[in-house]
């Protein structure tokens, strides 16, 4: 048995239906380890309702804290900190925990050892079983940074789980945007499925996403969701993608079934197994694998 095939579903712009589509693929894949790497807004579990059997904390960042007893207010660290994270208030220096990137430079420069670097353990990783197979997902602590590291760790656990269960696929609901967590979820994966919608913002964001994934070797397929909302835009997107050599693997019509299935906590393919969307999604999945 070879290495499992890693598919990551991305969208650039949020709200395009990425999670609903991932959930349907989880059902269709039959033998997959599922992960949710949209760690800011991990929503896939709301459809898959997995049972968690283990969870652990994960530290993905550090922050500096100044010991007021020791600090002599010499002013070296605020001068050198490049993130303007050290402020002067109430006659002393404080680290603004939201601005600090935990680089540790202040600790290096402090002549009296007043700076401590603390690890932040606010993130959690959940190991669970869903009705479509094992699922690993993460939840980022409030105001945490470095979600990229959390994403890498979740994927690593998913790969270990896949080895044990001999899964054929690892299916990832990826984060929106093009920043650090997205980069971490694409690195080393086998296929990116980009879900977009025919809006000017959807297309704008998709172009940025494609440019970003172009830095990796991972091939990209596109699904246009709600394609009939603006058919001209859909055609523009299709033509442009053709020019870039990217395949549109399917188009899904706008349909309230999407939202209704969500309200019931079901995948579209469970809610309306013989509907157009379920049929189209099955066809797309078959074509992918």
């Amino acid at each position, binding site marked *: 048995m070879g290495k499992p095939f890693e598919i990551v579903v991305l969208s650039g*712009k949020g709200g395009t239906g990425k999670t609903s589509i991932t959930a349907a693929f989880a059902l269709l894949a039959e033998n997959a380890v599922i992960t949710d790497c949209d760690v*800011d*807004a991990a929503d896939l579990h709301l459809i898959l309702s997995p049972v968690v059997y283990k969870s652990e904390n994960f530290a993905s960042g550090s922050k500096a804290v100044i010991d007021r007893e020791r600090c002599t207010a010499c002013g070296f660290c605020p001068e050198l900190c*490049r993130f303007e994270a050290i402020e002067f208030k109430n006659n002393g220096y404080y680290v603004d925990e*939201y601005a600090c990137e935990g680089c540790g430079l202040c600790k290096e420069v402090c002549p009296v050892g007043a700076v401590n670097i603390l690890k932040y353990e606010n993130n959690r990783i959940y190991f669970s079983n869903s009705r479509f197979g094992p699922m690993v997902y993460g939840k980022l602590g409030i105001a945490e940074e470095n979600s990229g590291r959390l994403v890498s760790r979740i994927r690593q656990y998913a790969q270990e789980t896949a080895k044990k269960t001999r899964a054929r696929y690892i299916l990832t609901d990826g984060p929106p945007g093009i920043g650090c967590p997205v980069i971490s979820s694409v690195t080393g994966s086998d296929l990116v499925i980009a879900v977009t919608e025919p809006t000017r*913002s959807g297309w704008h964001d998709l172009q940025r996403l494609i440019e970003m994934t172009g830095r990796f070797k991972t091939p990209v397929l596109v699904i246009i969701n709600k394609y009939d909302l603006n058919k001209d835009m859909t055609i523009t997107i299709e033509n442009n993608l053709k020019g870039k050599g990217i395949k549109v693997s399917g188009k899904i019509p706008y349909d309230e079934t999407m939202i209704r299935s969500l309200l019931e906590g079901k995948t579209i393919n469970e809610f309306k197994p013989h509907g157009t969307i379920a049929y189209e999604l099955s066809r797309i999945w078959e074509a992918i694998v």
Partner: protein
Amino acid sequence: MRVAITSGKGGTGKTTVSTGLFHVFSKYLKYDVQLLDCDAEEPNCHIFIKSDNVTSYPVNISIPYIDPDKCTFCGKCKNVCAFNAIVMLPAIKFAEVVEDMCHGCGACSYVCPEGAIKELIKPIGRISHYDCHGIDYFIEGRLNVGSALQTRVIRETIDHARQKGVVLFDSPPGTSCPVIAAVSKADYVVMVTEPTPFGLYDLRLMADTVKQLGKKHGIVINKSGLNYKPLYEYISQNKITLLGEIPFKKEYAMAYSKGEILTEYDKGLMDIYIGIINSIFDGQAV
């Protein structure tokens, strides 16, 4: 007053609300307001805002470069780097900075005893100012594709905001560092949600974050019409102000897809936005 418009998840209509508020403020209430697009990964406001006079400049960081002739491979820089951005293999006399992982903090050049590290400028994003009759009414922060330092771009964008008057931030979605970079600089936070289980789940995280930051806040329900009770229960149980509801209509989605500002498209929405503005400002802003 600085108002951040955000949402726990993307796609709930954050940009619709930001541009709608901007439009009602400036065109209808004739109030001089500034809009900032702080969603640097996917800046979309520009699609709805037209200007023929745009000036822009890069956001730069300093990236270290290790001079192989001066480096003695002592490893001090590698040890101090909190982001594992330095690769060093003394056996083959190799030392290099992985640019994509570097945060440009300067710790390595500070600790290097040989003065072997010099810093070079690297652009990570762009800030654009849109002008109208000499008034700087819209600023966009845009992350360069491939960079992971969105937070830096957002902070710098906000540094360029006006110091007086009303400034609206279209902030990134979520609850992690990029959102905090925008929301922590605001006086009031508008949380946009939609009446679905996803919307509610993400709203909860967002509301906890905003409370932890101690910011005044309220909720706008977008795409309302789906009678999803748990959302309304949550809002009333937690005594959060409901600023207004924007109904769902397929034609709104269509107008949005073409880059039209909805309040321009449907004047009936104007009253809803005025209601939202009145609630935010307690009826005394404008």
